[in-house]
């Protein structure tokens, strides 16, 4: 062995011996906090690097009551962490934030927040949102935090194929299909429409909250109706005009940015970077309308406190700060999530977000709007119900199975899940118990 090798071996041995000694402190903080008295904020939102950095800055600037350590994780880790900590009775997380669908399965792990909700009446939360926050029970489990919806981003290049007489801001589904058909033909046979149908994509929301309500007026009760057959026949035709690579898209802003597709449907936060650099080249437009109206879905994020969490008062103070109008506007400005509190949006929003804000307003104020909520009270079955819609899409559009037979088969599965859950219907289905496909 050479001297050199001997030297590295010695260095290695020293490093190996030093490691456990170094580790004696149990680790170095990676969230900027962890000390006593700070608030551990576990969240499923703002996981992308830049969004996280911007939100951490908002926390540092605006939250003066306590130091907040922000820990964004994926939803599985979120659920596991919360569940084990509450079950073991050793809660270290003070504050949790997530989408309605993330929080819904964990309702029994969250503290009742009626007192806090009672002191926040001046925020002017919509009644629907407060109801959602009860997770099907009678007490507030989370406080509304932010909201969003889905819409379409349109690169102006695609407008050249828009059928005459169609208004891009007020499309019908039929006009949209003929537009996309003309666009594919005009683009040398390459489809220009992209849908987030990848493993992390939110395409099921397109069926649940947009396509089906627009065609059938419902989501669950009308699952296998004649109107639903029409809707899925439509979807099959639309899919033929859609980029097949959509099954790999998680965030539609990426193919839009690359110019791979020119028109995309997705969550506003997943479209935001597409028009960012050149807002002049883009339009953000409301979803199309169908025979029954303009179906659209709300996305709600909420803030909750785990049962048995230490320093609950500090966490409540943070919730209070995060629901003040200035902080809500700042979150919109930085991270494209819309306020849940009453108040006018400022005029000086970044261009891309200004585009989105207009489309959001148009969608909500449309005379034929049909609002859908994410499933209410399904708890841990939320994902399985969404999977039914994904499976239906796969069977009909990807595998080319017959529409009616597929809907019948999937309706049986859907009802099996719903019969177990025994919940009342949520919008747009008429409230009635128990909810199931007719």
């Amino acid at each position: 062995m050479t001297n050199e090798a001997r030297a590295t071996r010695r260095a290695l041995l020293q490093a190996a011996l030093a490691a456990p000694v170094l580790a004696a402190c149990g680790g170095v903080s990676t969230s900027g906090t962890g000390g006593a008295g700070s608030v551990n904020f576990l969240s499923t939102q703002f996981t992308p690097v830049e969004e996280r950095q911007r939100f951490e800055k908002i926390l540092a600037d605006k939250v003066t009551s306590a130091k907040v350590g922000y820990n964004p994780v994926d939803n599985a880790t979120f659920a596991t962490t919360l569940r084990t900590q509450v079950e073991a009775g050793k809660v270290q997380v003070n504050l949790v934030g997530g989408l309605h669908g993330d929080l819904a399965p964990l309702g029994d792990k969250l503290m009742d927040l009626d007192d806090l909700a009672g002191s926040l009446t001046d925020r002017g939360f919509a009644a629907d949102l407060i109801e959602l926050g009860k997770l099907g029970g009678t007490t507030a489990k989370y406080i509304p935090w932010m909201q969003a919806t889905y819409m379409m981003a349109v690169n102006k290049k695609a407008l050249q194929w828009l059928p005459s007489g169609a208004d891009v801001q007020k499309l019908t589904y039929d006009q949209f299909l003929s537009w996309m058909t003309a666009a594919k033909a005009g683009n040398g046979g390459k489809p220009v429409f992209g849908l987030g149908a990848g493993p992390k994509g939110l395409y099921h929301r397109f069926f649940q909250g947009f396509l089906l309500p627009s065609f059938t007026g419902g989501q669950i009760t009308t699952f296998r109706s004649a109107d639903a057959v029409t809707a899925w026949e439509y979807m099959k035709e639309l899919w033929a005009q859609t980029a097949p690579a959509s099954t790999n898209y998680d965030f539609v802003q990426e193919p839009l940015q690359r110019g791979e597709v020119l028109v995309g449907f997705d969550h506003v936060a997943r479209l935001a970077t597409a028009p960012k650099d050149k807002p002049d080249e883009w339009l953000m437009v409301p979803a199309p309308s169908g025979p029954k109206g303009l179906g659209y879905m709300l996305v709600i994020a909420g803030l909750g406190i785990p049962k048995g969490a230490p320093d609950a008062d500090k966490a409540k103070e943070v919730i209070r700060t995060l629901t003040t109008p200035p902080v809500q506007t700042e979150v919109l400005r930085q991270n494209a999530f819309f306020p849940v509190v009453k108040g006018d949006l400022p005029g000086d929003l970044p261009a891309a977000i200004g585009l989105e804000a207009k489309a959001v307003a148009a969608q909500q104020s449309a005379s034929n709007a049909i609002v859908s909520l994410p499933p209410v009270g399904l708890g841990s079955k939320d994902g399985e119900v969404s999977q039914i819609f994904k499976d239906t899409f796969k069977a009909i559009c990807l595998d080319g199975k017959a529409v009616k037979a597929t809907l019948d088969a999937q309706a049986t599965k859907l009802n099996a899940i719903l019969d177990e859950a025994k919940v009342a219907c949520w919008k747009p289905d008429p409230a009635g118990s128990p909810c199931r496909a007719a």
Partner: protein
Amino acid sequence: MKLRGPLLLIAPSLIFLTALFAWPLVAGLSQANGADIRRMLDDAYFWPAARNTALLIVVLIPLQFALAIAMALLLRARPRFAGVYFYIWVIPLAISDLAAGLVWLAVFTDRGYLNSALSQLHIEGYAWLSYQHPVTMFLAVVVAELWRSTSLVFVIVVAGMQSIPRDYDEAAAVFGANYWQRLRKVILPQLRPSLQVALILRTILALETFAVAQALTGRNMPLLVGETYQWYAVLQNPNVATAIALVILAVSLLAAFGYLRALRS
């Protein structure tokens, strides 16, 4: 002494693994019941996932072992720059499956490096990963996995080859054995313990991988472990996830047992 010696040596690992794994294993596995197993079997993704997993292992592992053994033999012939070659061949070992999925996605995606290179040669690109082209989709996963996981086999084979005394091989050469004869009669038999271990580990790890396939194909090419994650994380149904995990566990142990028997020295 004959019995207590080895027991004393393996005791720490036994205690360690029992404390950390056996207990949560029992606690975790008692969750799945008959209804969950039926649910798993009825799921539209289960059988395709089982088929894809089996197919991937059957295609990948022989290719991978052939490549790894060839690589080790090439190095054994002491080419120039062998140190550099060795280093580059081993680096994929250090790359997490997430990062590996990322880079191969960048290669095979519609507007990726492969189609970019083709377009510079004025060849029309191809949708390698489209669900409409299951063959290229599968091949892309095989190539990516070959790249990512062959290093493990290669390193085990190299480590095993170190202890084969060169004089055996040289003696055989003196007696006129050609290269293939020496390979089959001298080198490979000596490598058997290493190959056995590599085979067991790789099969088990292959049953456990899904991140690369998921990055490349989404759920168009489901694999069993990917389905476990899907049920656990997305569908939030730990019971069905556990049922699939049990299938994987059973197949892994069966395979390991088979290898231990078949390659007994």
